[in-house]
């Protein structure tokens, strides 16, 4: 056996049921969501109100405040400057790392709506362009959490060293010019929860932004160092001096698992929206309701929503959260990596289905494509696959600038008007 040990130090390589007590017509701007009277009982501890939406009135029941689902160090309860409130719990799980649970949103002037039962990363698949190596970067992610410095959590608080909880400006929430009066405008803000993980050369930043308008933006940033694997010109980019070595291009296919439970697990339905009409003047809305488990592909105007028809806002519209996955590079791998071949998966809740690939649970399918097996959906879980193709550049020389990838979850009809 011939062993060559080449030590090269080149540049990089070498180098939430909200109800209102007043008739809808009397409400000024903040229209809350309410569970319609068809619901015989509250579905969650927070689901304290029953509304008779069909009569245009809502009746609130005086109910004691529910106990917090987690203790202080793991509890996040933040009211943002505009009055929007987010409540959730975090846990640094051994495998998935930062996991957020029991996420509840309270729009200003409204009652709380539970949104997500659980949300976490479900895989970071990293295939290199030459075909090898091909990593599944979620190992025991929790044990790779990096202790954060104060500077890593600007304006925030660090929880048990590795989780940052902070608030961040997000630019204009709105701006409307006045007619004779002055313009009205407001600056928006996000509650941000994040942790950093060291996986090999890479540092992954797992971030969740909860906006004061009810939006949720999960994203992952990759920084740290490039792997330093060199390849041929066809599979890489020369980033050292000259054009002798080519740093290998690769994909980061990040998967998230989102268990939406809008006011409890019952009544949640996933719909897909398309708009027909190509090279035509008219466009028409097409709604596809997923009654069974499904794999879905991105399209330019396509989006999905998780809707609970049993939970209505003051306009009588069902409360939903919309999902947009428009920034993915849409990597499609070989047959053995079928989990890469769809952008959104909708599966029925099973506690053992935890990761999108290399699932660690016994007596369970091994990857998300196999979780989709025709089951009728009663408690849907969404899996979102966002790819980023990284072609290295000189600027990636150490420390590598953070490149981000993620998607958007926005409230659709949670309130009857802008709850600003």
């Amino acid at each position, binding site marked *: 056996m011939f062993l060559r040990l080449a030590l090269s130090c080149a540049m990089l390589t070498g180098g939430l049921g909200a109800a209102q007590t007043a008739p809808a017509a009397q409400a000024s701007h903040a229209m809350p969501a309410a569970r319609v009277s068809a619901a015989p009982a509250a579905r969650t501890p927070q689901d304290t109100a029953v509304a008779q939406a069909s009569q245009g009135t809502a009746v609130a029941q005086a109910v004691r405040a529910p106990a917090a689902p987690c203790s202080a160090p793991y509890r996040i309860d933040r009211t943002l400057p505009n009055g929007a409130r987010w409540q959730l719990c975090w846990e*640094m799980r051994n495998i998935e790392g930062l996991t957020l649970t029991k996420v509840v949103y309270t729009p200003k002037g409204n009652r709380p709506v539970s949104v997500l039962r659980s949300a976490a990363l479900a895989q970071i698949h990293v295939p290199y362009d030459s075909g090898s190596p091909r990593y599944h970067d979620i190992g025991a992610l929790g044990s790779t959490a990096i202790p954060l410095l104060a500077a890593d959590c600007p304006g925030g608080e660090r929880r048990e060293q590795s989780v940052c909880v902070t608030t961040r400006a997000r630019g204009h929430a709105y701006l409307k010019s006045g007619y004779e009066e002055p313009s009205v405008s407001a600056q928006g803000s996000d509650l941000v929860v994040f942790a950093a993980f060291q996986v090999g050369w890479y540092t992954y930043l797992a971030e969740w932004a909860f906006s004061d308008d009810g939006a949720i933006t999960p994203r992952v940033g990759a920084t740290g160092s490039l792997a330093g694997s060199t390849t041929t010109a066809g599979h890489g980019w020369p980033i050292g001096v000259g054009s002798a070595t080519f740093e290998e291009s690769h994909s980061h296919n990040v998967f998230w698992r989102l268990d939406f439970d809008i006011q409890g697990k019952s009544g949640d339905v996933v719909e897909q929206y398309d708009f027909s009409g190509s090279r035509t003047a008219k466009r028409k809305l097409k709604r596809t309701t997923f009654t069974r488990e499904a794999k879905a592909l991105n399209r330019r105007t396509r989006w999905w929503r998780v809707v609970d028809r049993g939970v209505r806002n003051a306009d009588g519209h069902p409360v939903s959260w919309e999902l947009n996955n428009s920034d993915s590079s849409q990597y499609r791998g070989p047959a053995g990596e079928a989990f890469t071949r769809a952008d959104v998966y909708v599966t029925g809740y099973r506690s053992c289905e935890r990761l999108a690939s290399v699932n660690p649970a016994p007596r369970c399918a091994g990857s998300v494509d196999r979780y989709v097996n025709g089951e009728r959906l009663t408690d849907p879980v969404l899996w979102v696959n966002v790819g980023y193709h990284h072609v290295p550049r000189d600027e990636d020389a150490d420390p590598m600038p953070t490149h981000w990838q993620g998607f958007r979850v926005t409230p659709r009809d949670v309130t009857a008007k802008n709850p600003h």
Partner: protein
Amino acid sequence: MGRQRIVMALAGAGAVAVVGAALLLPGGQGSQAAEAAPREPVPGDPLTGAEIARAGDIASATSRAHMAAGRVNLLYVERDDGKDAEERRRADAYLYDYATDRLIVRTVDLGRGTIVKESVTRGVQPPPSKAEEVRAAELLLADPAYGGGVREAYARAAGRQLRSVADLGLRGLIFTPGQEGGARRCAAHRCVRLFVRLPGSTWLDTSRIVVDLSAKKIYTLEW
């Protein structure tokens, strides 16, 4: 054995020192275990250190002889976050039997102090534990072909001789043969791909090296 050409490249990376320190944190489940003062956990809290220890003890009770012999290892304990058991404190203990290549997951009800479920399976590989990362590195160091190269790279980066694997920053990922050629025995065995970090924020290029913890062998991927 065919002629194999292995390149171990030292990646010169200038990451901040704290990252290196994090990598060198001792094993265990510090990140998952609650570190605050002892208190009665509520259902949604992470497992406390005491709960992890207790769940591990209960789950290991019937495997002690195999564990003493090194045949079975307790990988880690994870909180059971299933919706059907939300109000209960339950923990899943992951054990692996390297002789039969079986994953054993025992669910412990911490309120009752008993195992309420056991699943045994083959072909499912949860992530490597901290102890497995160390074991894999020990096998790598003991390998006649690679051990010397790792020591040499360490000496060059650190300016001193490697004393033990504790000097190395280790991260492991499960390797299963699929799209990458070689190491076919890893379809059934428990195999790990290591990332080895050296002082000065450099890494060994170990991307082609696979450590078979079941067979206690090192494989080199051919690509």
